[in-house]
């Protein structure tokens, strides 16, 4: 598993960034300028996320992506039922709450054993990224294809039977696929 050191590195980087830049309530421009999202990178290259640009786009409303965790007011009525007064939390990075091992037995058992847990249906890290980013990109009408955000690796090409691993054009059926 060659991505583990990368994962550790990014976690440490994220932690350092959090420690250095956040107080209880974040202000405009407090966030990191750029974040390299690489903890899951296998089939695709890491994403170079322009955090500063996205702060501008969201007019520094951190809640657009970070829910209530930075103390900014949220709009979703379902969340407000409990989190109207929640305020900032210690954990603000995506992977602090959204698990990378969402469907492994260990995680499922832990959820199962905790009767008091409300957020049982919390998406994993990969889905947190994709749902958050892509839904917003669609709304804004900006680039939303897989490779618009992250280039595919050689392993990815192999996985999708694309690029250098694409089947010959002659294999392509001429009409319907039945």
């Amino acid at each position, binding site marked *: 598993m060659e991505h583990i050191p990368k994962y550790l590195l990014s976690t440490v980087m994220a932690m350092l960034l959090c420690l250095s830049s956040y107080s209880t309530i974040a202000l405009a421009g407090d966030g990191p300028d750029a974040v390299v999202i690489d903890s899951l990178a296998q089939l695709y290259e890491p994403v170079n996320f322009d955090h500063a640009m996205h702060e501008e786009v969201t007019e520094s409303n951190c809640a657009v992506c970070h829910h209530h965790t930075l103390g900014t007011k949220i709009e979703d009525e*379902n969340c407000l039922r409990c989190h109207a007064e929640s305020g900032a939390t210690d954990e603000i990075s995506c992977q602090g709450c959204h698990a990378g091992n*969402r*469907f*492994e*037995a260990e995680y*499922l058992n832990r959820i*199962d054993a905790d009767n008091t847990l409300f957020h*049982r*249906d919390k*998406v*994993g890290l*990969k*889905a947190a990224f*994709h*749902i958050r980013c*892509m839904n917003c990109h669609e709304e804004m009408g900006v680039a939303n294809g*897989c490779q618009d955000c992250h280039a595919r690796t050689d392993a990815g090409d192999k*996985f*999708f*039977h*694309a690029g250098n691993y*694409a*089947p010959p054009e002659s*294999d*392509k*059926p001429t009409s*319907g*696929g*039945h």
Partner: protein
Amino acid sequence: MKAMNRRKFLKGSLLGGAAASVIGKSKNAAASATFGGYPEAMGVLVDLTRCVGCRSCEAACNKEQGLPNPAQPFDDLSVLDHERRTSEGAYTVVNRYEIPGQDHPLFRKIQCNHCNEPACLTSCFVKAYTKTPEGAVIYDPTVCVGCRTCMVACPFYVPAYSYSSVLNPVIKKCIFCYDTRLKFGRPPACVEACPREVLTFGRRQDLIKIGHQRIQNYPDLYEDHIYGENEVGGTSWMYLSSAPFDQVGFDTHLGTQPILSYVKEFLTVVPMVLTIWPALFAGFHLLATRKDTQKNKEKSEK
């Protein structure tokens, strides 16, 4: 006189058959009410509102199951232009549905739904199929004789046939990655590959709660129904949708009874018809024609 007797006999046998089937029915009702699937069975909740049709699940399935190379790359979305079915080379496929009145299409991934009480299993006369306590419907290709009865029995038209194999054609379908993953408590390859968690893997009982919770939280988004919670006795793979289910390719007329309960009465009569009836009627025939044969004999002796 003779004719009357035969009519009476036929009437009697029909009544007897009807009575047997009525008794059979009440027994069935009790049986299906008590089963409803293994309690610890795993499942997958497919949320159509999240799917963007990227086909990563198809690519993952191809790799995990060692399926033949596709005719087109998995990132070629032109295949979505026509509706596809599962095949020997693709145990799962994604189809696109344009929804009237909605500006977005919906995408539906199909694969074996892993029924609680599978019709394929019931229909298989060599007992190739097994429903495992983990929830998977698996099959043993070494005993499959390729009769394709399960293809007819499946209400979802899922099992495919390896028509390309000349010497040993067998049934091919999704096995929930049982051998390589589910058995070890791991999610199937498609679930792991899905970027948007369209596929939520977990205990089936928990998934039903999660599904209803999502509907309750976002009643304007979802149809108030989990397809597969009760359809044909319940399935391990279940679906949430933002469009009426019949608009996204689902058969909404399958009912909640396992397919088994529709055919049980009939199937119990089959052995009787095949074994007892020939002997019985052959006996009647012999009795009825005995006089004639004796006459013939006497004639020939004369």
